[in-house]
C-alpha cells in the first residue's frame, strides 16, 4: 500500500527542506503499477539535492521509463530528521513517484559514486525494512543491485548487494530487467526452481554483471588475497565492464526539481572518456574509450531540453570539455541562438591552454566564480609523474590569457600525497600561486584573488597508482602546514579536506570483502552521512576495524607488489593491468606518456571492444 499524501504531510511539516521527500516534479514519471512487469527503484545513498544532480541516474530513469513493461522511481537518503520522523511513525522508506515502500519493488538499484556513502546504503535498506545482508534476503524481497564508479571495486559491499553492474548501464540494465521479468513469469507459473540463487545464476550470464555470492575469495595465511574464484561452472572468471558503442539519447525531458539541487541546470553530455592519461584519474581509465556526441546532436538536444525545462543555464559536460573536436562551433551556435534570452553556458573541466581561455571568454560564465583550472601538482617533476602533460609555461600563459581577458579570480586544483612527492614539490604549489598573484597584479593593475583547493591523492583501483600506498598522515599534514605558512597572503584562499575522510575513502575504495563486516559494525554504531562533516565520526570506523581485527595500514600504507591479487582483480575495465603497471613504472621514473590521440599506448581498450568499435560508422573512437 502506497503512503498517502496526508500520511506524509504529518511528517513533512516537521522536517527541514520537505521538498526533498515529495516528488511531484515536472517530468517525473508516474506509472500505474498494475500495467508493468518489473518495478525498479533507483536509489542514491545521499541527499536528494546531491543525487538529483547525477546524470547517470537521469539517463537510466529516462531509458527504463521509456519501456512500457518497466517503471523506474527514485529514492534518496533521508536526512536524520526525516529518518527519525519515519522511524517514529513506523513508516518505511518510500519512492518519490508513487510513495510505494521500497521493499515492494522488484529491484532496488543503488548508484555508488562515493565510498563515504556506503553506510547510507545499509541505512536505506534498513529503513526499507529489509535485511542488510544479501544472504538473509529471500526471493520475495527486492533484488538489490548497484552500479556507478565505486562498483569497479565491488568487494567492500559484496555481502550486502546481490549483484553489481559494471560499466555503462544503458543496455545492461534493460537486459537485467528483461531477465527479472522472465524469472517473475516463471515463478508465477510455477515452472522450475525459481529461487533467488536461480535468478542470480541466470543474471551472472549477462556480460557486465558480477554476482559476488557466486565467487569464492581465498586468503593466504598473512591475510593477503590469493584468489577470487568462480564458485560454479558458467560463472566468468573476470567480468568485463559494459560500454555503449555510441552515446545514447540525451534525456531531453529531465525531471526539473522543485528545490534547488547542486547542479540545477540543463545538462548535455558532449563526450564520454578522456585521452589525456593522467595517472591518478580513475575516470580517465574507466570511461575509455572516447566517444563524442556530434555538434548537430548536441545543439538539437540543448534546444529540446531548454524548451522542456525552462532552465537558463546549460552545462556541456565531459571529462575534458575543450577536447571535443567541435566545441568552438557548438558554443558559437548556441550563443547565436540565445542572444536574447540570457542563456548561460558552463563548461566544466577545461584543459590548461589559451584555447580554453578563449572558450571561457566566449561563454563568460565563470566571471563571478573565477576561471578554473587544475595544475594538480606544483612542480614540473611531479606533474610529469602524474602525466599531467602541462608545463609551467602553459600554466603561466593560460593564467596570463585569463587575466588579460578580464578575470580577477582564478581557482586552482592541486593534490598532495602524490607518489615520490617531497616537501620541496609541495612548496612549489606555493611558489606557483605567488607567481600567478604577481602576474595578475601586473596585468590587472590590482590585487587578484586565487583560491587553491589542495586534495589528497587517494590511489584508486584501475589506475596506474592502484599499487601505490596512500601518503602518510604526517607527511600530508606537514605539507599542508608548509603551504599554509608559505601562502599567508591577502587574496589567497587555501582549502583541503580533513585527513580522516581521505583515510576512510582510501580504505573503502581499496579494500576487500572483509570490509563488509567493518561497514556493518560502523553502521550499527551509528555511522551515516560520512561525507558530511557534521555527521562523520571517524572513531566509529577505527573501532569497527579494530573489532574485526583488521589493520587499516594493510589497506593504506603498503605499496602492493605486482604479483598481489588485488580485490578488484575480477573486474575487467578493458584496460590491461600490464598497461597500468607500465604506466606506474613510468610514473616513478618521471616519464611522460603523450595524449593517446597522438600515439597508441596499447592500453587494451580497442581490442577489448573491437566488436563494439566495428559497429560504429567510422570505426573509430578518437584512438588513432
Amino acid at each position, binding site marked *: 500500500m502506497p503512503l498517502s*499524501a496526508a500520511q506524509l*504531510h*504529518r511528517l*513533512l*511539516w516537521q522536517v527541514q*527542506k*520537505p*521538498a526533498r*521527500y*515529495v*516528488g*511531484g*516534479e*515536472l517530468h517525473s514519471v508516474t506509472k500505474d503499477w498494475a500495467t508493468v512487469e518489473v518495478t525498479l527503484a533507483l536509489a542514491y545513498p545521499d541527499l536528494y539535492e546531491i543525487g538529483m544532480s547525477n546524470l547517470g541516474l537521469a539517463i537510466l530513469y529516462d531509458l527504463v521509463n521509456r519501456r512500457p513493461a518497466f517503471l523506474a522511481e527514485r529514492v534518496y537518503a533521508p536526512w536524520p530528521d526525516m529518518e527519525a520522523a519515519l522511524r517514529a511513525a513506523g513508516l518505511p522508506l518510500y519512492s518519490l513517484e508513487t510513495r510505494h515502500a521500497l521493499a515492494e519493488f522488484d529491484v532496488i538499484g543503488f548508484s555508488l559514486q562515493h565510498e563515504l556513502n556506503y553506510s547510507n546504503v545499509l541505512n536505506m535498506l534498513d529503513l526499507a525494512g529489509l535485511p542488510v545482508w544479501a544472504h538473509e534476503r529471500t526471493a520475495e524481497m527486492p533484488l538489490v543491485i548497484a552500479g556507478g564508479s565505486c562498483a569497479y571495486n565491488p568487494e567492500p559491499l559484496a555481502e550486502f548487494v546481490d549483484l553489481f553492474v559494471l560499466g555503462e548501464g544503458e543496455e545492461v540494465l534493460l537486459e537485467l530487467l528483461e531477465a527479472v521479468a522472465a524469472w517473475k513469469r516463471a515463478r508465477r507459473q510455477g515452472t522450475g526452481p525459481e529461487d533467488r540463487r536461480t535468478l542470480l545464476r541466470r543474471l551472472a550470464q549477462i556480460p557486465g554483471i558480477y554476482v559476488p555470492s557466486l565467487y569464492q575469495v581465498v586468503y593466504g595465511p598473512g591475510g593477503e588475497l590469493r584468489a577470487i574464484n568462480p564458485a560454479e561452472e558458467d560463472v566468468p572468471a573476470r567480468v568485463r565492464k559494459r560500454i555503449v558503442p555510441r552515446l545514447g539519447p540525451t534525456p531531453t525531458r529531465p525531471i*526539473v526539481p*522543485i*528545490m*534547488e539541487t547542486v547542479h*540545477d541546470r540543463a545538462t548535455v553530455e558532449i563526450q564520454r572518456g578522456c585521452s589525456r592519461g593522467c595517472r591518478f584519474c580513475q575516470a580517465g581509465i574507466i570511461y575509455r574509450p572516447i566517444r563524442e556526441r556530434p555538434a548537430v546532436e548536441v545543439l538539437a538536444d540543448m534546444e529540446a531540453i*531548454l*524548451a*522542456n*525545462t*525552462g*532552465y*537558463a543555464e546549460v552545462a556541456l559536460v565531459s571529462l575534458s570539455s575543450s577536447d571535443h573536436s567541435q566545441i568552438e562551433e557548438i558554443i558559437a551556435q548556441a550563443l547565436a541562438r540565445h*542572444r*536574447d*534570452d*540570457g542563456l548561460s553556458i558552463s563548461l566544466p573541466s577545461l584543459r590548461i591552454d589559451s584555447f580554453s581561455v578563449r572558450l571561457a571568454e566566449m561563454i563568460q560564465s565563470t*566571471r*563571478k566564480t573565477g576561471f578554473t583550472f587544475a595544475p594538480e601538482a606544483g612542480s614540473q617533476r611531479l606533474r610529469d609523474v602524474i602525466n599531467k602533460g602541462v608545463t609551467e609555461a602553459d600554466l603561466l600563459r593560460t593564467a596570463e590569457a585569463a587575466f588579460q581577458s578580464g578575470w580577477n579570480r582564478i581557482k586552482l586544483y592541486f593534490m598532495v600525497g602524490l607518489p615520490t612527492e617531497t616537501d620541496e614539490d609541495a612548496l612549489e604549489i606555493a611558489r606557483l600561486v605567488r607567481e600567478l598573484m604577481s602576474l595578475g597584479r601586473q596585468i590587472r593593475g590590482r590585487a587578484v584573488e586565487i583560491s587553491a583547493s589542495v586534495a589528497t591523492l587517494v590511489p584508486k583501483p584501475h589506475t596506474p597508482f592502484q599499487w601505490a600506498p596512500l601518503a602518510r598522515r604526517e607527511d600530508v599534514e606537514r605539507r599542508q602546514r608548509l603551504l599554509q605558512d608559505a601562502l599567508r597572503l591577502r587574496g589567497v584562499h587555501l582549502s583541503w579536506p580533513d585527513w580522516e575522510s581521505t583515510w576512510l575513502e582510501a580504505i573503502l575504495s581499496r579494500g576487500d570483502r572483509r570490509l563488509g563486516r567493518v561497514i556493518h559494525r560502523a553502521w550499527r554504531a551509528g555511522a551515516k552521512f560520512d561525507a558530511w562533516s557534521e555527521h562523520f565520526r571517524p572513531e566509529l570506523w577505527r573501532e569497527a576495524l579494530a573489532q574485526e581485527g583488521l589493520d587499516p595500514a594493510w589497506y593504506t600504507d603498503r605499496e602492493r607488489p605486482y604479483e598481489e591479487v588485488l580485490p578488484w582483480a575480477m573486474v575487467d575495465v578493458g584496460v590491461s593491468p600490464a598497461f597500468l603497471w607500465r604506466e606506474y613504472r613510468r610514473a616513478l621514473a618521471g616519464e611522460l606518456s603523450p595524449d593517446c590521440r597522438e600515439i597508441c599506448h596499447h592500453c587494451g581498450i580497442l581490442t577489448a571492444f573491437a566488436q563494439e568499435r566495428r559497429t560504429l560508422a567510422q570505426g573509430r573512437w578518437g584512438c588513432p
Partner: protein
Amino acid sequence: MRTATVQRLRVTFAVEGAWSYASVLDLGRAWERLLRRARLPLAYSQGYNPHPRLQFAAALPVGYTSLGEMVDLWLGERMPIQEAAEAMVRQSPPGLRVLQVEEVPLAAPALQALIRAAAYRVWLTTPLPPEAVRAALEHLLAQEHIPRHRRKKDHQADYDLRPLILGLEYCSTSGTTHEIAMLLRCGQAGSGRPEEIIEAAGLAVEDRIIQRLRLLAGADGEEKG
C-alpha cells in the same frame, strides 16, 4: 536582451500538492522557468547576471498550500493577455495553477506595498475536545498583548502577536480535526503566521494543514478592488 518594460501582468495562482513544500526561493526559480518555457517576451534586469523582472506579493511559508498567491511580471514586448495566460497555463507544472492574469499599469505600486492582510484556513488535528480549542482561541483574542519572539538567523526578535490577529474564528469539527479561519496581518507592517497563533494558544498539534485563501489589499485587511 530586453531591459525596457512595456507591459506589466499580475498573475494570481494556486500552490498545491508537492509545490506546497517549496521555499520562497524555489517558487521564484519555478516561475522563471515556467515563463521561459511559455516563451513570454520577458524584460530582464540589467547587470552581469540578468534575471527576468518578477515581484511576488508575499512569501508563502514552506508547507502551506494557497489559493491566492500573486506575482507581477514585466514584458519587453506587448502581448495579448489571453495569449499570455494560455501560454502560462500550458506550462504550469502540476501544483502551480494559474488562476487569473490581468494587466496593471506599469507605474502601479509594488505588490508588497499593496498587501495588508491574508486569510487562512487551518485544519488542526489535536486530541483536545472542540470546547477546549474554542476556549483557547477565545482566551487568546481576549489578551491585549501577546508578547513572543521569533528566532531569526542570527538574533531573536521580540514582537506582539495580538495586533497581527485581525480575525480568528472556530469553524467546525470533523473527528479530531478542527477547522479554524484566520485573518492575519500580512505585509510590510508585519505578518502573523497561523502556526504562531496555534502555538500561542497552547494547542497540542498532531498534524496541521494550512491554506492561504487569499491576500488582501487595503487598510486593516478590507479588500479593495
